[in-house]
Every structure is written in structure tokens, then in C-alpha cells.
């Protein structure tokens, strides 16, 4: 039986005060097992990105606990959170967030400055099929290529969990499929836990687990016994 890796226990996150008070995450609880490919689905404003941010150690809950690998992330201080992000999490952004002044290779290799036992940048770029583009700057690459560099950067840290916030949101369908395929492989073949946030319900068909959110609450948690492969879904 797979081990529980992520545990959200009655988590609440509130933004603003007084009249402007907005409950972004309202008493949310769920678990994610090691190696699962999870999609958090919901409309804009459903609270899915806030959940991802708390899981990624970029935000802290007002109430409840976020536990990853048995450690309470929600109780960590600034320095511990930096280490947590460096060692455990690989993040893939919607708009890639590559450093414009660094080449593709350097964007991946900068991980060495964060984590000593990081993986080889050349190997990572090869894995995402960008060995021949490694000396290009982000501005000289397409969106899909940039996102693949972003994945290579996330992989270079050899993270236990990969988080993606609308990683295909800025890509065309074909490029989106390539990226998605790559992420699915990480889960099925490499054993990484992959958690994606999206509003695209088609992507959910590829996931082991789909957490549906609405107005800050979990409306449903569904398990796909036989997830579709990325190429099977209709975009």
C-alpha cells in the first residue's frame, strides 16, 4: 500500500480583514499518496492555487496543518521553508519564470547553488529534449521550450514532489500535451508525486486522483482507477 505523503488537515486561509475578508480556503482536508499524479480542479477563485502555495511552502495557513512526509510544513520558519522548497519541491509555473539573463543550461544549473546533490543540468535538458537549445536565452525560445526548461529546472533538484500551477495554461494544445506527457511520466515511471492545479477538466482524466474545489471548499475527491494516457485525452 502506498504511503501517504501529503496531508491537509482542516486548513483555512483567509485574506484581508473586515469587509474585505475573503476565505480562500475553507476547512480543507485531503491526503495524497507517494507517487500519485493529482489534479486539483476548479474555476478561477476556487482556492486551488492557494492550496498549492501552502503545499509549496510559499504561504502558510491561518488554521489547520499541512503535513508533508510527516513534517508539519505549516509550522516551519522562513529558513526551514527555504530548505523545504529546495529539497522537497519542484515548481513549474504557468509563465515558466525562467531567469531572462541566464541561458537554458544556466537556468537549470543554478539549482546547484541551492542543492548540492542536484542532478546534472545537461542530463536534465536531454530528458526534456532540449540539449541542442541549451545555450539559448529564454527570449530566444518558444513557450513550450521554456516550459520544458522549467521542468528540467524542477527535475534537477530531484524533488520528491512536483507542483505545477496551470503548467499548460500558456501553451498551445500540442505543446501542452508534450509537457503533460512529460509530467505524467515523472509520476508513472520515476515515482515522483506530481500535483497540478488547472481549470481544464480534460487534464483530470490523466490523474490518479482529482480534487475538485469550489468556493474554497473541496466539493469532491475522485480516484481514477485507470487514468488515461495523455495522448488519449481530447484537448
Amino acid at each position: 500500500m502506498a504511503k501517504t505523503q501529503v496531508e491537509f488537515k482542516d486548513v483555512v486561509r483567509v485574506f484581508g480583514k473586515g469587509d474585505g475578508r475573503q476565505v480562500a480556503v475553507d476547512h480543507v482536508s485531503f491526503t495524497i499518496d507517494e507517487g500519485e499524479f493529482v489534479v486539483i480542479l476548479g474555476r478561477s477563485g476556487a482556492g486551488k492555487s492557494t492550496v498549492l502555495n501552502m503545499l509549496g511552502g510559499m504561504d502558510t495557513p491561518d488554521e489547520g496543518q499541512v503535513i508533508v512526509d510527516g513534517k508539519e510544513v505549516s509550522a516551519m520558519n522562513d529558513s526551514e521553508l527555504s530548505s523545504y522548497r529546495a529539497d522537497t519541491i519542484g515548481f513549474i509555473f504557468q509563465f515558466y519564470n525562467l531567469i531572462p539573463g541566464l541561458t537554458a543550461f544556466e537556468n537549470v544549473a543554478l539549482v546547484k547553488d541551492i542543492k548540492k546533490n542536484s542532478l546534472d543540468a545537461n542530463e536534465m535538458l536531454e530528458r526534456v529534449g532540449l540539449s541542442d537549445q541549451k545555450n539559448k536565452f529564454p527570449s530566444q525560445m518558444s513557450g513550450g521550450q521554456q516550459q520544458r526548461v522549467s521542468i528540467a529546472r524542477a527535475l534537477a533538484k530531484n524533488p520528491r514532489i512536483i507542483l505545477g500551477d496551470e503548467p499548460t495554461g500558456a501553451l498551445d494544445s500540442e505543446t501542452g500535451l508534450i509537457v503533460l506527457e512529460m509530467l505524467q511520466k515523472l509520476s508513472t515511471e520515476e515515482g515522483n508525486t506530481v500535483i497540478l492545479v488547472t481549470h481544464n477538466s480534460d487534464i483530470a482524466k490523466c490523474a490518479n486522483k482529482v480534487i475538485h474545489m469550489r468556493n474554497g471548499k473541496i466539493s469532491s475527491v475522485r480516484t481514477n482507477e485507470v487514468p488515461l494516457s495523455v495522448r488519449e485525452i481530447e484537448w
Partner: protein
Amino acid sequence: MLKRKMLRDIKNSFAQFFSIFILAAVAMWCYTGFQANVIGGGEARKDFESKTNFADGWIYGASFSQEQAQAVSDISDIKDVQLRTEVLGKADEKYNTAELYCYFQNTMNVTKPYTMKGAAYDPDDTDGVWLFYRFADAWGLKVGDSFTAHVLGQDITKTIRGFVATPEYEFACASTDADTDYHNIGFAYMSLSVLPEQLQGYNEIVFTCNGNPLKLESEISRALDGSYAFLADRKSIDGYNRLSDELNQHDGFSYVFSAVFVAIALLVIITTMKRMVAKQRTQIGTLNALGMKKYKIMLHYMSFSVVITAVGCLTGVVLGIFTFGKMMVDIFSDFYSVPDWHPGYDAKSILLSLVIVLVCGLAAFLSCRMILKIHPSEALRPAAGKTAKPCLFEKLPFWNKLSFTAKYDLRDISRSKLRAVMGVFGTMAGMVIMLLGIGAYDTVDFVKEWYFNDIQNYESQVLFTDSCTTEEAFSIADKYDGELISTELISIAAENHPTSDDIVSCKLTVTEGKGLFCVSDEDLNVTKLEKGSVALTMKQAKKLGLKKGDTVYWKRSDDNSWNESRIGFISRHPSIMGITMLREDYESEGFSFKPMMLVSKQSCEGAEDLTYVSAVHSLKDLKAAFDKSMEIMDLLVIFMVFFACLLIIVVLYNSGNLSFNEREKEFATLKVLGFKSSAIRKLISVQNLWLSVIGVILGIPLGQGPLQAMMDSNGDQIDWPCHVAPLTYLLAAAFVMAVSVIVGFMFQKRIKKINMTEVLKGME
């Protein structure tokens, strides 16, 4: 609505706009501060000169008659003429036999004494004396007191009628003092009739004229049949010229310092506005799409810089007049004797402020116009990311071995060149100003060492009274095994029988060549005078176009004939300008050597009681007096160090701030990736440190030139070779580096507060 937007935008980019405000304010603060002194001093002097009908020209000679004065007066460009007798006398013993310049005249047309207290000068009043008010203040004299002067062998006792001032004594220092002490220097005005008839000869004609008095020399010479010693203009009157030089120096400072701050402000404006319009690209596109005219949008963005610099300039003008300017005037009006000297200001401050505002507005215009050229539909979309390409640094052989921080910072510098230029230029300017300030101190120490340990190779200085005979001087020289020195005023020229335009007034120093009173060569090495030649000081040689081996012509003030001497070497001395020659050469010209001073390696305290000795100074006393005379420089030094610090802090903080704002998104990404705040701070610190190092390196060689120019702006009567000690370079550099590091730490909090979740929402 746009006004509200402007105020909110200013609030959002407070640090940059506050920097611009500070720089504009400091520019005008410097300008109006210096100008308050210059304009206030200028106005007070103009008024003083007008009220006293201050002379434009001085004709010195053995004796002048009324007819000669009339002949001079008949020259078309000469306005008023005054005959007078000027004699150096002594105040009574109870006033420490202070040097007292006595003026006897029976009319009052030119250089009329200005009444500070008591009755106005009356040349017909044979019972009264009018004294220099500073001297009277020093001795606590009152109107109505009796006062005795010893002059021309006469003991003249008169009743003090009033206290006066004249522009000839705006600066005054006794020849026995190294620093102004009004106990020892004064002047007195009396009626010519006070003197016995046989002494009532005039030795001076002073006059006012149109234009340059020296241009009238040929006409004056004809009017006087050539029977005069020399003609001088205001520049030759040390008591007047010293303040002119000082005010000219401050006038120069006011423009140089404000220019430096305005230049930095321009760089900050360009970088800030470029960044702001780039950030607000879609807003500009929206305003344009809504139908707002381009000129209105342009005016909106120009208004940021115009409003901020206008407020800054206004603040600077007010602060300049009432703080720095007032402080300068308080100090300088205490040092110089000019009545009614108050901080002054004129339309130039407003004009300069307008120029600064316009130039800064123009800089904003140039920074924004590119974005307004973009079609609105295009401007509505976010700009494509800044294109990156391999930078110049990548050609470095060790590029691949550089750390991430180094590569990242080098690429950032190559992508934000203007910001880097601002950082380097600002640090360089700060370094130069810092070197000027601390270097001035070093120069004072260097000159002190050179003057008191190299040139003055003695321990005691004994000054003789006028009545001291040559025999008395020789006997005391024997007793203390010393060297006798004489000094007198002379005129020098490169040609025989020159006109006044080609004449330089300076001093002739005659030494016995015993090696106690020395002169330095151009490289500041103490050099012995050769028999049959003279040493001519460097500044005077340059002025006359003379060099080693040339002939210099010289004339004593009480003699009408020109003498010639071969220049053995070009010399340097911090304060005695002119010719130095050996006693035997002087006597071989037919002049009798009349010592004014004895210098000795022995203590001469015992000589104080001798009747023919006016003062005895030990080297310690002379050094103390030198230090005191430098106190006025402290203000300038403090001022320069303060503004250098301010400039460096503003520039480096601003550079760091811009760097932070431009890279905030990247920093957030790095944080998400797991970079610690300290590692991100290091990125800012390292870059700032590099820019500082380059600024410091560029600033080091640039410090010497302005420092020497600052020393030279004190006039031709002072020759101070500038010197910056190695420790000063180290201190200045260390300060710049320290600010750089501290600025890095100032961003620690902001880095910690970076909102990573905002970054995840994507690009603007």
C-alpha cells in the same frame, strides 16, 4: 485623476523619487549655500566699496605733490584722486606695540574710512584719531579714549573719535603672526596736519577710474614724468584680494558641486522613468485607446520629474540660504571685515532651479517618448520579454568557472547598462568629493610638514622692530648662532622697464645662506641658493613665462630703478612668493642688508625683553598658529565629506533599489526554487560592490586634479602642492565599500517580504 495617479505612483516608487528629490535639493542647497556667501559678500563689498569710494589704483612713490595729483586727475579716464601718506607705525606698548598702518591725509575723496562707531573721519580734526574697529574691539578701546601711536619717530597721542573699516583691510594679519590676531594689527586715520611740517610728504596717490587702472599706466607715467615707484590695482592689495579669491573659489564650488548632483539626478530620473513607463505600458495603451491625447500622457509622465525636482530645488534654495549659506556667512564675516554681510540670493537660484527642472523634465520626456510611439493596440499587450544575448563578459576565459551569482550579476549589468553607469558614476563622484574633503586635510598636514620641517630648519624666530639697527641684529645673530633674514615688497618682470600689466608684485627674501631658512625646488626638495643667482617661485615664474637660467627684473617699492638677476632655479614655498637671494648678492647690487628677522636652532626666549625685538616665536607657536589658521577650512572639509557620504548613500541605495525592483520577479522565482533570502541579498550586494569598486578605482586618479585646482583657487600668493595620503584612499574606498555592504543589508527585509504567491499568478 492623473494627478492622483501621479501621487500614488510616486508613493509606490517612493525610494527612487525621494532620491531624485534629495539630489535636486542637495544640488540647490550647495548652490544657494555657496552663493549666499558669494552674493551676500559681493553685495556687502559693493556697498562697502561704493560708500568708501574705494580706490581702483594705487601709485606708490617717494614723494608726490598737489600738482602731480592734479596732473593724474586730468587724465580722462581717472575720476577721483586722493593724496595720502601711508606709514607703518606701532601702537603703544600697552597695545603690545601692534603693527599700525597710519594714514595721514587732508582731504577725503578716495577710500574714505567707513564709520562703524563714533564720529565719521574728519581730516581737518587734528586732535582725533580713527582706529580699525577690529583692533579696537580686540583691545576694548572706546570712543573718547586716548590713544598713542609711534610713527616716523613721533609719539602721537590723540583722542579716539571713531572706529572705522576700509576695503583695504577686509583681511588683515600682522607680519609677525601666522594667523589673524587683531591684537597685533590695526590701522589709524589722522589728519596730515598731525605730522610736523617736514614730514608732511605724500607717498601715495590713490584714484578711482573707468576700466582697468593698469591700462592707464603710460598716461600716468607721462603725467608724473616717470617719477613714481609702481602702479598697483586692487588685485595687488592683499587685504582686499584675499577675499576676492575666496569668493571666486566658492562661486566655482557652487557650480561644480551642483552639477555633480544634477548629473546623478538625471541618471536616476532616466532609469526611474524608463522603468516606470515600461511597467505601465498597458496603462499607457489603455489611456491611449480611451482617446487620451499623447501629449497629455507625455505631460503626465513628465510631471513626475518636474514636480519632484521643482519641490527638491525649492527645498534646496530655502535650506541653502537659511542653513548652509547662513553658516558660511557667519564664519566668513567673522574672519573678514566687511560691514553688513548677510546671506544673499538672486534670480540666478530660481533660474538655475528652472534649468534643472527643465533638464530633468527633458530627461523624463526622452525616457518616455519611445513607449508613446508604440501603436495603442500593441501597447495594450504586455511587452515581449527583454531579449537576452551573450554578453561581453562571456568572452572572458574564466567565464565558465564563475559562480551563478557572478554570471547572473554580470548578465544583469549588461542588460541594465544605464543603471550600472549610474552606480559607477555616482560612486566615482562621491569618491572624488570624499578625496577632496579628506585630501584637503592631508594637504594641510603635508604642507605643514614641508613648511615647518623642511623649509624652516630652525626652532625659533626673532622678529625685529623697525628701529633695530644692523649692529644689534648681528650681535643677536652671533649670540644665538642664527641666520638673519630680510623681506621686502618688490615688483618683478620678465623684461626690463615693463608696463604695470607685465609686472607681478611679490616679496624679496634675502638670506645668509646658512641653511636655516630654506627654499624647495619644484620637486619640493630643499635646495641651496647658488651665489650669483636667485630662486624665483614657480607660480610667479609661470605667470611671467620665466624658467631656470632666464633673467628676472626686479624693483624695490621705494626705488625707481630696475635690477636684474639670473634665475638659478625655480623654487616653491607655501606662502612667500617671489625672489629669494643671498645677502652677498643683494649687497653687491649696492643695497644695504636690513634684517627683519633672526632664525635659530636655539631657544631664543631670552631675546623677548630686548627693545629691538618685537616678537619671539618658537616652532611650536608657529605650528599652533598655522593650525588655527586652518580652522576655516574645516567647514569646507566637513561639508564635502558630508555631501560625499550623502551622494554615495543615495546613489548606491538607489542603484540597489532599482536592481531590486527590476529583478523582484526573478528573486521571487529564486525563492520559490529554494534560494535563501541571504543568497538573494548577496546577488544585490555583490553587484553593488562591483559597481562601487569600479567607481572607486575610477575616482582615485580623478581626486588629485580637482584638489590641486581647489588649492590653486586660493590665488597666486599661496602655493600648496596637493597631497592625498595612501590611508585616505583606503579610508575613502573602505567607506564606499561599507556603504555598499550596508545598502545590501537594507534590502534583507524586502527580500524576506517578497510575495512568492504573487509571482505564481504570472507575469503582468
